[in-house]
């Protein structure tokens, strides 16, 4: 079974980011960009950062989460299991960026290095369409 990206959510998140950052950057621009080289570089860097931040959710558009008997796969990661309860789910509130949904196998890794490099251990399923619900439906007699 394949679960695809939630395109509506991705577009809404990008739009919200665009509106918030457009207001912020317009505020900087309206208050006058410093004529010095540093001021211009700072403004250009801010615009570049804002564009990357706004467009970054779009890279999730083609993500697919695969559920198969005894295994799940996402991007290049694959978790195999004999009992679906081995797969743990967690929601992380990342304040103004929104809530991240991720799943992992085994014990949750909470060390600072593991948190920074969490994408090596976990599947970040934030932008998919109801992945946790579909997981329960598929493996755990969900209704």
């Amino acid at each position, binding site marked *: 079974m394949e679960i695809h990206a939630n395109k509506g959510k991705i577009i809404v998140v990008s739009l919200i980011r665009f509106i918030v950052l457009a207001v912020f950057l317009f505020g900087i621009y309206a208050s006058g960009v410093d004529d010095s080289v540093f001021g211009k570089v700072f403004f250009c860097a801010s615009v570049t950062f804002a564009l990357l931040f706004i467009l970054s959710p779009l890279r999730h558009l083609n993500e697919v989460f695969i559920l198969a008997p005894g295994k799940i796969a996402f991007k290049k990661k694959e978790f195999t299991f004999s009992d679906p309860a081995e797969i743990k789910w967690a929601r992380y509130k990342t304040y103004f960026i929104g809530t991240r949904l991720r799943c992992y196998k085994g014990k949750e890794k909470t060390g600072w290095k593991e948190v920074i490099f969490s994408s090596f251990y976990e599947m970040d399923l934030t932008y998919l369409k109801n992945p946790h619900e579909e997981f329960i439906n598929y493996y755990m*007699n969900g209704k």
Partner: protein
Amino acid sequence: MFDFMDKHPMLMLGLFLAAFLLYFLIKYLFDKHKGKNSEERRRVLEILKAVIPVEESYVPVYAYWTEHYGKSSKSWYYAMGITDEKLYVVPLHIAGKVIGYDKSFVIHKNSLGKVDSGKAGGSVRYVKLYDQNQKEFLKFEVNEVNTKMDKTMPLNIVQVEEFHAFVKKLDEWKSQ
């Protein structure tokens, strides 16, 4: 309007707090009413019916346990059915409106070393079960009224009669 707000900041704060409390009171009453025959309640009963053998006569309850670690928390949810001799425990998995279940297990009264069924009276019981070596192996909270509060309390289930019957049986286990 803004002039009034400037002149009476404490009154505005009071009104804001009152509106906030009123919102939660209305939400609680609404969820409590809904919980008497909610979809979630029916689903929990359906799961128990699918797991517990038909010949068993049991008291069904929904129970959970939440542990907090700093800013994050982890919750375990259960559908339980208690008979005179056995406790059927079905781990639940909940996401949004979907409720699934995992491999169930049975605890026999005679296999327990100790039963701590919590403080008598009230509408909440904190239960701890210990094995023959006095090692705690299961703990859960049972409530008369469960209403949706946040992601850790996702179900509206009101189980007043079941709660009293369940704790009565557990108290009997405790005293034996």
